[in-house]
């Protein structure tokens, strides 16, 4: 029988085709570590008495977009969730839900990206699962990853540690991922636009660990963008945050698409940026350290913690002030 160029329902049936798919596509890439021999569960080593454990699912459309695909996104998403909790990412699970008819060539590109992103992030795919569903029951390919990381010493992170006068740092231009995905949807017809910023942030966290006691809180501003993360930090709190529009880093592509579609960059996701609140004393040193790294060269100090309880305020280019609100729901191009 000739090999099908597409995923068949039989690839998920547990028989010979399933076995071939796992051997050729999964074991060939990830089979060296705990996955060797395909045990039902992985035995993994950790450093200390506590680990950080997280999970995330990925359903991005289109599956491939400028600057990445669902594979590296699924690695970076989970690695970054671990990193912002103050962990060194170590182990990853990889669960795939494939739609009948998916091109195997596309699956290969996605798995190559998973492998490259995992290697770059210092994590090992230790366990996984593959299911095939009938046409129409998922949109091409869904991915779930769970991750385990070693807790880095010194970080005590929570929004409750924010103090008036603390500084807010962002590790690079915001919104490129969200704008790249929006622009890649065919009906907007934008070419040569922004590229996704999908990347791991664990090295930035590691680099800040010398000042761990001065770091109050970290997040990666994904869905809902910077606006959502900042608002979550000050919700029901006695403090607020003020940021300055002129300091918010934006790429040329993100600016262009934001103008064209009428979307506020503060509402748009990044997938490789780190937002940190730290003491005013530590901010310059952390910023200097980041700016010397490739993934932090666009880092900026964008604002401070204030006593305006529960409010996130933007000082605009015009010198006026406005509340930064959270996006209502899905991001849609505006005409008004």
């Amino acid at each position, binding site marked *: 029988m000739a090999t099908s160029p597409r995923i068949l329902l039989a690839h998920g049936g547990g028989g010979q085709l399933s076995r071939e798919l796992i051997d050729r596509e999964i074991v060939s890439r990830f089979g060296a570590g705990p996955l060797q021999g395909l045990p039902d569960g992985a035995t993994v080593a950790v450093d200390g008495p506590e680990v950080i454990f997280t999970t995330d699912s990925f359903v991005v459309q289109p599956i491939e977009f400028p600057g990445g695909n669902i594979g590296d996104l699924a690695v970076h998403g989970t690695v970054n969730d671990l990193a912002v909790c103050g962990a060194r990412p170590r182990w990853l699970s990889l669960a795939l839900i494939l739609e009948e008819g998916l091109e195997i060539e596309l699956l290969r590109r996605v798995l190559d990206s998973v492998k490259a992103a995992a290697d770059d992030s210092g994590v090992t795919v230790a366990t996984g699962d593959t299911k095939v569903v009938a046409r129409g029951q998922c949109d091409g390919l869904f991915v779930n990853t769970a991750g385990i990381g070693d807790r880095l010493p010194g970080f005590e992170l929570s929004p409750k540690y924010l103090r008036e006068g603390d500084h807010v740092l962002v590790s690079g231009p915001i919104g490129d991922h969200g704008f790249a995905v929006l622009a890649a949807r065919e009906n907007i017809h934008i070419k040569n636009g922004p590229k996704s910023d999908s990347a791991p942030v664990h090295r930035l966290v590691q680099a800040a660990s010398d000042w761990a006691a001065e770091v109050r809180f970290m997040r990666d501003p994904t869905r809902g963008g910077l606006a959502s993360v900042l608002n979550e930090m000050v919700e029901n709190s006695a403090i607020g945050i003020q940021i300055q529009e002129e300091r918010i880093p934006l790429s040329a592509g993100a600016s262009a698409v934001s103008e064209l579609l009428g979307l506020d960059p503060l509402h748009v996701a990044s997938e490789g940026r780190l937002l940190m609140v730290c003491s005013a004393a530590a901010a310059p040193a952390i910023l200097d350290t980041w700016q010397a790294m490739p993934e932090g060269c666009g880092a900026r100090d964008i604002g401070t913690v204030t006593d305006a309880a529960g409010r996130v305020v933007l000082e*605009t280019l015009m*010198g006026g002030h406005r509340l930064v609100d959270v996006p209502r729901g899905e991001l849609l191009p505006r005409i008004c």
Partner: protein
Amino acid sequence: MKYIEGFRNPGAAAALREDIRALTEALPPSLLRQGYGGQANRTTNIMEVCGSHTMAIARYGIRDILPSQIKLISGPGCPVCVTDAGYIDTAIELARRGVTIVTFGDMLNVPGSDTSLAAVRSEGHSIEICYSPLRALELAREFPEREIVFLAIGFETTVAPALAVIDQAIAAGVENLSLLVAFKLVPPALAALMTDPDLQIDAFLCPAHVSAIIGADAYQPFTGSEGVPCVIAGFEPLDILLGLKGILTQLGSGIAEVDNQYSRVVTDAGNRRAQALMETYLEPADVSWRGIGVIPASGLALKAEWSRYDAEQRHNVRVEVGKMDPACRCGDVIKGIASPFDCPMFGNVCTPSSPFGPCMVSSEGSCAAYYKYSR
């Protein structure tokens, strides 16, 4: 981005702020109006007619940098916000009949009488969000077996693109595409406001891109001895400050003229090609504005000869005027007569997540802004 960022120059903004402050201080006291409900602060009321001005004023915190006597009032010029609930009801009915609805994203959460397009999409009906009306033509070609209806809302700016799509559909022999028309016109809305004896508006900040289509001369009827200053401004923040400066200059010298501060785009006569398309396909119609009511000849409808592209005719539906709660004060808020706080629905029945009138539908409408800032 030169022609965008150059119009956001912070240094120039600071200079213009000072000019605006000086002009405001020099205004004759007779120009200051009594505040709402006898408040002590007297104001000069400037209406920004257009929803995009409202959005830009909010985005750049422009109210915050103006002298407190200058009160900016958001006018009726957000086509999404003033879309009548009855129109949404008709779009929903078409979707439920199996028609593919193509719409700008702004419309998705506008409430109909009972539900919204977003809710109907979640029931599995076909509702496509577009950036351009050209998407409707693409879909009509791609799926000849499907009936496509484009939600043709908008003021003059958006009318021409929708008509160009029909023009191209006719040329290409595409027959499964029609428009559910709710086009609205700015000058008749201004005329209706001007004839209202209760109006508390001292000047109009006139829209940028509507004016690009209709031309600066269209505002002449609202100026002169019985009129108010009409200043056309672009949507960048410095454009807005220059527009306000132009208004204050006129108010200070007691004149009321058309002043085109967006001369890089707006001409006296407007875009003739767009106007010609409108003349070919459309005729004036009385239309209903959410929260305001029916304004005579304030909209456009497809002429009878184009009825096959008119979704109401083609699918045998009729847009009825939606239910209006008599308690909604949006009409008065828009005229500058009432504050959102004067409305009994504000903050309880009518909130940003379940808006009723246009001032709450728009995220930067007067009521939505008051709600957000008074939390």
